[in-house]
C-alpha cells in the first residue's frame, strides 16, 4: 500500500499527530476501509417498496437504503414517475433526467398503476405483505382511501415500517386542509426557513437582496435523509420487538428541524435575523475573498487563527481593533464590512495557492511552537464540483465510481460517502429502465 510506504515526512497541521502505539492495528483498519468490495451488506434482509410519486425525497431515501444493501423496488405507473423528467435545463439521457440517474443505485423497477387500477392496487397489497418498508408521497389520506394505507397494510404485516413524505405531514388540521398541495424542493426550501437565511444584504439592489434558493436540492435531500434516518430508527425498534410503525416526514420541517436555529433564535430574539450576504453571524473571517487568480475560502475565526492570518497578510495593525471574536462579527455591520474590505486588499495581492501555502507553513510552525498559540488559519481555493472529481484525495478514497449500464452507457456517480470497516455501502449497478424487473419481482414475491 503506497500510502504507508512514503519516506518523505508528511506535513502535519495540528499539534497532535504522529504514530500511536498501535500503528499496525491502525494500518489494518485503514486497509479494510480502503477495500469495501465484497463485504457483507447491512440491509440484505430488507425489502422496500418505493411508491413515491413526483417527489425526490422518497427516491433519495430509497437510494440510501439501497446503498446499504436493501432490495429496493421502485413502483411506478407505466409512463414512469414524473421525477424522471426533473433535470437541469431538460438535459436527459434517452428521456431520463440526470438526478434520477444519480439516485438509480441498486434499484429494481416495477410498473403498477396504483392511482388508477384496482387490480394493480391488489398486487401492491400482496407485495406489501412481504415488504419491510414502504415509502410513499401521495397526499395524506390518499393511500388510506385506496385501501393501501398504513392502517390496512399493517393489519396483515405488523412489522411494516411505513414512511410517508408530504409537505405538511399526516396529522394536524393544516395537514388535512393542505393535503392536496404538492411537495417540491423549492417550496421545501422557502417553507422550512432555508431561503430566508441565504442571499445578499438588504442594502444591495433587487433582486439580489431577495431570499435565495440553495443551488442544489437541499430541501429534498434533507427530507430524504431524514426519512432514511427515521426509517432506520423504526427498523432498529422492529429488530428488538418485531413491531413496525409509521414514520411521518413533513417537507416544511426540513431545514428548521435539522438546524434548530429558527425555533430557538425566533424565540429568544423575538425577531427574525436579517440576511447578511457573504458574512457570518458568529465567525469572522469565515467566507471567501477575491484573490489574484479567482476566489479563495478563508476560515480563521478563532482569535489565534485570526492573529495568524494577520501575520500572514502583514496587517498586524488591524489586530488592536479586531482582537476578539465579538469585534469581528457583523452586529455592527459597517465595522465588519471595513475589516472585510481591508482583508480583500491583501488577498488580491496573492494567488489562491500562494495564500494556501503561507497558511499551511504558518500552521505547521504553530503546531510545534508554544508561542504561536496553535493558530491554524485555513485557506483553500474554491472548487467547482467538476474540479473536485479529479482530486487525488477522492481518487484514493474511491469517492467516485464509473458505472456501466446497457441503456445509459458509462458515467460517473458519487460512491461510498462513508467508509466502514465491516459493512460499507456499495454501488452494484445504476439503472433506470421502466418495468425492468416486473418478472423478477412477481416471481420472487407473488
Amino acid at each position, binding site marked *: 500500500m503506497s500510502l504507508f510506504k512514503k519516506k518523505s515526512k508528511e506535513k502535519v*497541521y495540528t499539534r497532535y499527530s504522529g504514530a500511536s502505539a498501535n500503528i499496525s*492495528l*491502525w494500518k489494518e*483498519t*485503514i486497509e479494510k476501509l480502503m477495500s469495501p468490495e465484497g463485504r457483507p451488506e447491512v*440491509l440484505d434482509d430488507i425489502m422496500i417498496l418505493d411508491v413515491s410519486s413526483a417527489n425526490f425525497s422518497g427516491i433519495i431515501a430509497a437510494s440510501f437504503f439501497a446503498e446499504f444493501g436493501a432490495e429496493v423496488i421502485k413502483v411506478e405507473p407505466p409512463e414512469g414517475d*414524473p421525477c424522471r423528467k426533473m*433535470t437541469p435545463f431538460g438535459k436527459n439521457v434517452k428521456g431520463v433526467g440526470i*438526478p434520477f440517474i444519480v439516485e438509480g443505485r441498486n434499484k429494481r423497477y416495477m410498473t403498477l398503476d396504483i392511482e388508477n387500477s384496482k387490480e394493480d392496487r391488489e398486487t401492491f397489497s400482496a407485495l406489501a405483505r412481504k415488504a419491510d418498508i414502504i415509502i410513499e408521497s401521495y397526499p*395524506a389520506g390518499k393511500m388510506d382511501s385506496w385501501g393501501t394505507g398504513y*392502517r390496512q397494510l399493517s393489519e396483515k404485516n405488523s412489522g411494516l415500517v411505513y414512511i410517508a413524505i408530504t409537505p405538511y*405531514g399526516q396529522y394536524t388540521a*393544516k*395537514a388535512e386542509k393542505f393535503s392536496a398541495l*404538492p411537495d*417540491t424542493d*423549492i417550496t421545501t*426550501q422557502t*417553507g422550512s426557513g432555508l*431561503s430566508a437565511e441565504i442571499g*445578499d444584504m438588504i442594502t444591495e439592489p433587487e*433582486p439580489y437582496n431577495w431570499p435565495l*434558493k440553495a443551488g442544489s*436540492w437541499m430541501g429534498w435531500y434533507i427530507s430524504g435523509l*431524514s426519512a432514511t*434516518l427515521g426509517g432506520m*430508527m423504526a*427498523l432498529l425498534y422492529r429488530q428488538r420487538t418485531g413491531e413496525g*410503525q409509521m*414514520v*411521518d416526514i413533513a417537507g416544511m*420541517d426540513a431545514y*428548521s428541524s*435539522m*438546524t434548530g436555529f*429558527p*425555533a430557538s*433564535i*425566533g424565540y*429568544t*430574539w423575538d425577531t427574525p*435575523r436579517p440576511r447578511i*450576504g457573504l458574512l*457570518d*453571524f458568529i465567525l469572522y473571517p469565515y*467566507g471567501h475573498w477575491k484573490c489574484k487568480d479567482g*476566489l479563495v*475560502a478563508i*476560515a480563521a475565526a478563532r482569535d489565534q487563527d485570526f492573529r495568524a492570518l494577520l501575520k500572514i497578510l502583514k496587517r498586524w495593525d488591524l489586530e488592536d481593533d479586531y482582537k476578539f471574536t465579538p469585534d469581528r*462579527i457583523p452586529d455592527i455591520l459597517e465595522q465588519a464590512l471595513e475589516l472585510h474590505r481591508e482583508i480583500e486588499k491583501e488577498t488580491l495581492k496573492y494567488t489562491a495557492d500562494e495564500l494556501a501555502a503561507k497558511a499551511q507553513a504558518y500552521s505547521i510552525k504553530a503546531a510545534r511552537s508554544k508561542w504561536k498559540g496553535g493558530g491554524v488559519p485555513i485557506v*483553500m481555493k474554491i*472548487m467547482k*464540483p467538476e474540479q473536485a472529481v479529479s482530486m487525488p*484525495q*477522492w481518487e484514493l478514497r474511491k469517492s467516485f465510481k464509473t458505472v456501466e449500464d446497457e441503456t445509459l452507457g458509462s458515467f*460517473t*456517480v*458519487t460512491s461510498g*460517502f462513508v467508509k466502514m470497516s465491516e*459493512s460499507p455501502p456499495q454501488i452494484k449497478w445504476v439503472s433506470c429502465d421502466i418495468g425492468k424487473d416486473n418478472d423478477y419481482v412477481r416471481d420472487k414475491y407473488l
Partner: protein
Amino acid sequence: MEDYFTYTAKLFDQRAIKDKPEVFKGLRVLDFTHVIYGPTASKILATYGAEVIKLELPYYGDMWRPASYWGKYWKHSNPIWHFITQNKYFVALDLKLQEAKDLIYRMAKDADIVLENFAPGTAEAWGVGYTSISKVNPEIIYLSCSTYGQYGPMRYFPGWDLLAQAASGVLRTNGFPGTDKYYKLPDYLGDFIPGNMAALVLTMALYHRNKTGQGQYLDLSQTESMMRMLPHFTYHSFTGEELERSGHADPSMVAASIFKSRDGRFLGLACATEKQFEGLCSAMEKKELLSDKRFSDYLEALKEENAEALRVIVGDWIKTKDCDEVIRLALENGFAAAEVMDDHMICQDEWRRARGSVVLFDDDMYGELAVAAPSAQLSKTPGRTKWLARPLGYHNRYVLLNLVGLTEAEIEDLEKKDVIGTFDDKPGLKPPIYYHLDKDPIYNYGREVRK
C-alpha cells in the same frame, strides 16, 4: 371506518409522547465530539433515548458553548447550543492525565458507540482512538468524523463547515450566474447535514451489530457527505458541461423560482408534473400556454430560454396577486407554492406547534425555550426533549456514581486531583445567575437535596 385524520391524530398524539418507548433505551455513547458536526450525530441518538456522555475539557469545554449569534446570550447560555446538546450528560475530564484515560477505558467497556471529530490522528495519538478502545471493547462501534477523511493525502488538513462546502463544490452552486459572489449554505449546513449522515451510518452499524455481534470502525468525511447531494458530477460526466448557478430559479423543474408578490412578500413556486403545470395555467387564466410549443412537454419547458420566458410570465402574474392568494390558488389548482418563512414565523407557526416540530419546552434549569424536533415523527418511538444544555461538568458526579459505579469518596478524590472539573466564569459554560447548583439534586451525586 374512522376518518383518516382522526386516526392519525391519535397515532401521533403529542401529549402521549413522554409515555412511549424509546428506540435507544440503554444504549451508551461516549462522545468526544465538539462544535456542530459530531454533536449533531450524538444529539440525534440522545433524542431517541441513548445515554450520551459528552466529554469536555474542564474550565474550557466545547468551543461552541460561548459561540452565540451576534454575541447574544440567553440566561448566560448560548441559545442555539441547547438544541445541539439536548438530553446529553455533561462530563468534564482532563484527557492529559492517565487517571482520566483509565476512566475512559472503564467507561468504554460498557459503551456501545464512541465518536470523535478531532483533527485526524489526534484521537489515536491521545490513546483514545479506535485501536485503543477496541482493545478494551472489541464490539465497539467507533465513528471518526472529519472534513476530508482519515486517510488520503489531505487527511491532516483541518476543516470547518466552510471548507467542506468549498472543497465539495457546494459553495459554487449558490448565487447568480455571472457574478463573483457565492453564498454559503446558511447556519453551518455543511456540519448539520454530515452530522445527520453520521447518525444514519451509526444506525446502520448498530443494525449490523445486532445481527452479527460485530463492531466496526467508521470514517465519515464532511466533504464526501456534501458531494453525495450534488448531481453535478454525473451531469458533467454525461454532458461535458459545467452546471452554472441559477439564482432564484430551479433549472430542473418547470416554472420553479422564488417570486415577489404584490404585497411585497416572497414565495417559492414550482410544478412537479405536467398536470401541476396545467393547474398553474388555469390559476393564471392562461390556458393558451398549454398549446404553446415551448411549454408543450416537461423536458421542452425546461430548456433554458423556454424556462426563462415562462418564469417571466409567472413572475408578472404574481406581481398582481397577494402572497396568500397565490397560495390559495396553488391549493385549489394543485401546484406547489410556499411563502418564505423566517425565524420568527417558524417559531410562532401554529402548525409547527400542533405538529410538535417546534416545541415549547419547560426546562428545570432554564425555563421555557422553543426547540425544534425532528422532521421525522415516529408513531411508536418518537424522539423527545428531556433536558436542555447544562453547565460544563454538571453531570460529573451523577455519571461517575450512577453510570460508571464509582463511590462518592473516589469521585471526591478525582475532583481534588483535577482529573475531573467544572466550569470557568464564562457565559455558555456557567449556570444561569439565578440558579443554585448547591441545591441541585443531580449535581450533588443524584441525592435528593432540599430545594
